[in-house]
């Protein structure tokens, strides 16, 4: 092993070298997401800012697309990270995997440049193929859709083939099927229809089933690997719980799709389905709480990576509040009628995406850096008492909570004035937008956004510097039984 404290690719296996590339692009796009979020947020306060140059629609599109793509990169990177250790076999098509990484990354770059420089096109199908599909979250033009599908298929091939040649574990089985679903569901968003009800019906398949089903399971797989790795939990327990979580998540999540089918023209029976499965949603969370307490009580292990552990705890809280509390508050149709499509949705979306996904990918970043530097010490007594990771953790989380609460205040005003009293008319919309409580919420959101951005800068700084020159090392946990 090379000298500890230096980023040396000799410390990584083949899949992990590729994973580091994915992680690098992921954090770059995370930065783009923060930047364009700040621009869009500022336009709420100063409508003439960049008007006609980079309009709100463009900034907002880059903001949410960067979100989807950086998380996708984070997940694909995480899968490559654990692939060789889990299968105990070299990645079968590593060259192909590398090629596809560069193809996908070039495609993402071109898409973003077209978003920023071309922005819109004429009302023809060619625009949808070449510039912008104009459907929230999946704006990527059709040619890029095809690229994404091919890329995910290649990763799927690499994962399935590597596990088949090596060791096909329980985590492997879940991961392979999940990757297949990830690929299959994306196809549901790749066609044009004039009927907007049918359009949005399938659109939700992609958004909801990706985010609330396949991504959740992807996280569960990463968590399972992480628990064995960082805490040394035994495989049999971890895998049994992985199956339990899959059953609970898919059991409540797949038909939980119903809570998006209240108002898009779909029949009334979705009220009952959406309402019932919304009531089930907290069950997986309760399961996690009980299991976490049980696990913590059953072992008193010291963990070998404090930043990773801290971000996993942030994940537990963020997921619970963002998805659980914030989701449940406005999920019943009786109240969703007023909150659907207001700042409520934005508030919930911010905390849920951050809590459920950003946190765990950041945890993976720290695991990766630790190994890359030669399994360096990353527990207590870091230089400067680890102030960088602690402050970035604090600023990012506090910034996010601040933004979420600010938007909640704005959303509350909006649901009352615009929705309940004025009935979503043009006048009602702007009456709410101009209300002092609403605008104050938007100001606070921007301020907390700046705090978040500072936290992001610190995070990048820390990831680049943590463990540099560290001489103390650590043998990775072995958790095989």
């Amino acid at each position, binding site marked *: 092993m090379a000298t500890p404290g230096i980023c040396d690719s000799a410390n990584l296996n083949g899949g992990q070298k590729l994973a580091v590339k994915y992680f690098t692009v992921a954090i770059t796009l995370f930065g783009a997401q923060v930047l364009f979020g700040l621009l869009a947020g500022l336009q709420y306060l100063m409508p003439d800012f960049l008007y006609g140059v980079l309009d709100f*629609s463009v900034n*907002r599109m880059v903001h949410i697309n960067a979100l989807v793509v950086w998380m996708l990169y984070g997940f694909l990177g995480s899968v490559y990270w654990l692939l060789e250790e889990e299968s105990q076999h070299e990645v079968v098509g590593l060259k192909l995997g590398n090629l596809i990484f560069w193809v996908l990354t070039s495609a993402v770059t071109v898409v973003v440049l077209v978003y920023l420089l071309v922005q*819109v096109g004429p009302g023809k199908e060619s625009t*949808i193929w070449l510039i912008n599909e104009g459907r*929230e979250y999946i704006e990527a033009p059709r040619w890029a859709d095809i690229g994404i599908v091919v890329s995910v298929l290649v990763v799927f091939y690499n994962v399935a083939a590597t596990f088949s040649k090596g060791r096909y574990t329980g985590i492997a089985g879940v991961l392979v099927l999940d990757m297949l679903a990830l690929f299959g569901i994306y196809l549901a968003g790749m066609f*044009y229809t004039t009927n907007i009800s049918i359009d949005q019906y399938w659109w939700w398949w992609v958004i909801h089933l990706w985010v609330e089903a396949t991504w959740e399971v992807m996280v569960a797989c990463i968590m399972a690997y992480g628990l064995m790795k960082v805490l040394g939990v035994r495989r049999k327990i971890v895998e049994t719980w992985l199956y339990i979580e899959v059953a609970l998540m898919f059991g409540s999540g797949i038909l939980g799709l119903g809570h998006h089918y209240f108002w898009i*023209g*779909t*029949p009334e029976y979705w009220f009952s389905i959406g309402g019932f499965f919304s009531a089930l949603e907290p069950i997986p969370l309760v399961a996690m709480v009980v299991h976490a307490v049980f696990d913590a009580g059953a072992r008193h292990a010291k963990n070998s990576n404090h930043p990773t552990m801290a971000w996993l705890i942030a994940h537990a809280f963020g997921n619970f509040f963002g998805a659980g509390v914030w989701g449940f508050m406005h999920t019943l149709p009786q109240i969703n009628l007023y909150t659907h499509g207001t700042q409520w949705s934005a508030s919930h979306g911010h905390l849920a995406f951050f809590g459920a996904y950003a946190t765990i990918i950041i945890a993976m970043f720290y695991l990766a850096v630790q190994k890359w530097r030669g399994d360096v010490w990353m527990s207590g007594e870091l230089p400067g008492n680890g102030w960088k990771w602690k402050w970035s953790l604090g600023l990012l989380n506090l910034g996010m909570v601040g933004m979420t609460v600010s938007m909640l205040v704005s959303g509350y005003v909006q649901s009352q004035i615009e929705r309940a009293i004025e009935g979503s008319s043009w006048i009602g919309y702007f009456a709410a937008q101009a209300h002092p409580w609403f605008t104050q919420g938007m100001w606070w959101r921007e301020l907390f956004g700046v705090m978040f951005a500072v936290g992001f800068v610190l995070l990048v700084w820390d990831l680049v510097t943590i463990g540099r020159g560290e001489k103390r090392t650590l043998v990775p946990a072995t958790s095989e039984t």
Partner: protein
Amino acid sequence: MATNQWWASESFWRKTAIWVTGGSFVVLMLLTMDTLSQISTGTTRVPAYSVINHRIEYKFDEQRRVQVPVIGVKEPLFGKELSEEEAEALVKLGKLTTQAKNCMNCHTLLGNGAYYAPDLTKSWLDQYWGTSEIREVQMVEFIKDPSDKLHNSMGRRMPKLGITDEEARGVVAFLKWMSSIDTNGFPYNFKSIEQEN
């Protein structure tokens, strides 16, 4: 402490996970087939595109306790009655334009999208357009170049997006058709433009 209970075993939960996932998916497929048949174009929930030849209202339904779209007397869009094919072509142009101009990243449509500009679900019926006589012209002119039109007191404006006259007419047709979709009472308590003769 119990050991090796069947309900705590790995294989039991592997099977459960597979059955729950598979079962949920089959149910979702069945529901999808039923829903798609109920929301295809030309049904009571989602009317045919030629509905733009008619007046559309949004009225309170005593039985359902919410407002529902009501298709009224003949009132062709732009004064010209269209065949089903012509209507579909015009609405299609409008829908494509709303995608090509990225409307959904400021507005919401059927409540989905971004929150920087008003919801468009019932925008055809909005009182902003003044009276039903001048509405069509107002909408076309606004969509072609909104930058110098009155929006609100906050200075938030829609930019000029290079929309042609034909595209703007398509967008208006699309918005009129969208306002006829039965959205289970969303948006609630909406106050429509005066369109009694």
